[in-house]
């Protein structure tokens, strides 16, 4: 049996107490566990397992991280608290794909892609429309011309919601009302964007559960139609994930990637208590970078993802 064992200790602590204490600083916990010891032992790894699993990192990725740490420990022989702290962060950060965006927290639009077309996808209720509103604000603030396309024509009042965001941010929203064909809305939006010489186009789509085959096919169709107006569009397919979602996010990433070649992730609702650890495994498995995080409901509450900060937050 390896160092990692789910059942090496039977802590009979009461659930409620435990839950209240969960957020005690993990590093203080880890530090306590390694005091007076010269190497990483079961107790340390147990604590680590708890931290990662309760952050929704998932069993598989947790095992992977622990294995990597075990290997490092075996190689470097001696590992104290400080080193462990560093190694741990390094190993987890290494799983996150490098973000191609600007390092200083600015959004970067690649050269030669005008308009730069972003299609936003995800399951119901993850915050696609809100993310679009914030993204539009960010692009506009950096002096770019933005056009939004209301291709969520299904959910009650979704078009209206995007129009209100458009007014708030001050960007045009192309729409054909509710129940229109979403592919046709996307087509219209791109035509209009080209005519307006816009820099960025963001297409909203209806939330759909990834196991609904018909709806996933519709997404492929919306995507294909855009290429006819702007070759290569959409350049960015942004999958929005809710930080409070658990392991099902992996299946979401898988199915949306199959249907649309997702190439960027946004993680929303990180202002709550959920840690969103599931993106670590997703980013690693599907080789997709996390580009943006949502941290509130206001226009400015969108940040460029920073792997190091994200990993740090897991251990707060």
């Amino acid at each position, binding site marked *: 049996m390896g160092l990692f064992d789910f*059942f090496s200790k039977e802590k009979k602590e009461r659930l409620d107490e435990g839950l209240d204490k969960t957020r005690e600083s993990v590093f203080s916990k880890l530090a306590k566990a390694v005091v007076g010891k010269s190497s990483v032992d079961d107790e340390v790894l147990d604590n680590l397992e708890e931290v990662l699993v309760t952050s929704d990192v998932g069993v598989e990725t947790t095992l992977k991280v622990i294995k990597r740490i075990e290997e490092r420990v075996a190689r470097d022989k001696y590992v104290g608290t400080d080193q462990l702290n560093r190694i741990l962060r390094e190993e987890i950060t290494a799983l996150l794909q490098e973000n191609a965006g600007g390092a200083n927290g600015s959004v970067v639009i690649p050269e030669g892609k005008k308009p730069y077309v972003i299609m936003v996808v995800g399951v119901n209720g993850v915050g696609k429309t809100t993310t679009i509103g914030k993204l539009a604000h960010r692009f506009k603030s950096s002096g770019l011309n933005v056009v939004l396309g209301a291709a969520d024509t299904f959910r009650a009042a979704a078009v209206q919601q995007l129009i209100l965001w458009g007014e708030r941010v001050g960007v045009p929203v192309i729409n054909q009302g509710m129940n229109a064909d979403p592919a046709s809305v996307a087509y219209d939006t791109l035509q209009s964007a080209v005519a307006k010489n816009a820099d960025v186009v963001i297409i909203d789509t209806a939330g759909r559960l990834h196991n609904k085959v018909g709806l996933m096919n519709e997404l492929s169709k919306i995507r294909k139609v855009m290429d006819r107006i702007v070759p290569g569009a959409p350049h960015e397919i942004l999958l929005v994930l809710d930080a409070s979602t658990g392991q099902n996010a992996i299946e979401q990433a898988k199915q949306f990637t199959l249907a649309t070649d997702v190439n960027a992730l946004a993680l929303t609702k990180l202002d709550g*208590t*959920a840690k969103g650890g599931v993106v670590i495994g997703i980013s690693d498995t599907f080789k997709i970078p996390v580009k943006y995080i949502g941290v509130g409901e206001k226009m400015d509450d969108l940040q460029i993802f920073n792997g190091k900060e994200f990993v740090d937050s897991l251990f707060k």
Partner: protein
Amino acid sequence: MFENLADKFEKAFQTLKGEGKITEINVAETMKEVRRALLDADVNFKVAKEFTDRVKEAALGQNVLTSIKPGQLLVKITKDELTALMGGAAQDVNLSGNPTVFLIAGLQGSGKTTFSGKLALHLKSKRNKRVLLVACDVYRPAAIDQLKVLAGQVGAEVYTEDGNKNPVQIAQNAIRHAKNHGFNVVIVDTAGRLAVDEEMMNEIDRVHKAIQPQETLFVVDSMTGQDAVNTAKAFNDRLNFDGVVLTKLDGDTRGGAALSIRTVVNKPIKFVGIGEKLDALDVFHPDRMADRILGMGDIVSLVERAQEQFDEKEARELQKKIAKNTFDFNDFLGQIQQIKKMGNVKDLMGMIPGMGKMLKDVEIGDDAFKSVEAIIGSMTPKERANPQIIDGSRRKRIAQGSGTGIQDVNRLLKQFEDSKKMMRMMSNKGAMSQMMRKMPGMKA
């Protein structure tokens, strides 16, 4: 990731063979698998730990019957414990008030507004209530419009106050309006809020105190991960809610959050949302949820339903035919009819462990067998008994007679041959295990 917990159990329990009792040592490995299954299903870390400890206690010292595999016994104990923990029968909502007031609360994007619409339809059509929907989400752009649209779709009235940003006032005024206008039910939809947002939590606390609802329902996305416990606890501490609504259960999430929430706040799950249509609302079934969380099909009810429909004598006849390779289209048709009697095909296949996942992309309607039956129906008795005589011109005739295409007929013929092969293989395997059973010391 594994798909079939039962298989894992079998493996984990190989050490138990020859032992007549479940002991500390032989249960540990299995419980490790159970725990991993629970964590993969998003059951909270601590809840999973406590649960497996409990199952272990319940399992220790139980005698393993010779007729049942230890793995199966442990599956059963695990499932029973899980079902018990999720609460017995579904609990109804309290409709005693006049009007009865519902307060709907939850995080952003959990599906509160859609649920409000569904609940309105449910109470209107199944309980004959006059329902007033109240829009108290004064923050999210177009949230009020969304409720208006839904209200229109279900044929319920909606109460809004344009420009009023005070949800407490709106809710109070709405109830007054309901009393004056003869509504029996008031459903107050609220804005999504994070449990750590002190200001917003105070707000819903004030709404709750002001309107004193008969039913405060906490709406939670069934895909929620480890954080479900924190959120549920925070909302419960403030609102002491009466029940939980699990939404988006038509996805493929295993829904472990249901177990976590149930354990931490001990409140019943009253409804589940199972689709985008407004009638896609169901009552909660603890046993089904238990199966789902464990990622296993419902072997027990599959066996029960099969037994109900299965004529033993017929079955023996069939087995003989398979063994002798004389299984023909008459038998095939008989089989199809039997399966149809057992119920919805997709449901049925979903009960087979490991099949649920395979089937998630497949749409199988109740009429899945219609064309197959038509094709067989268009065969002559001779063709049915001797499928090998079906040549090109016969295929053409059969296709025309059944209103299908030649390729459909070809496909069926191929499927028939394939299943024949498979059945022979399976029946040989059966013979093998029978042989093994007869050998001394081999208790499979």
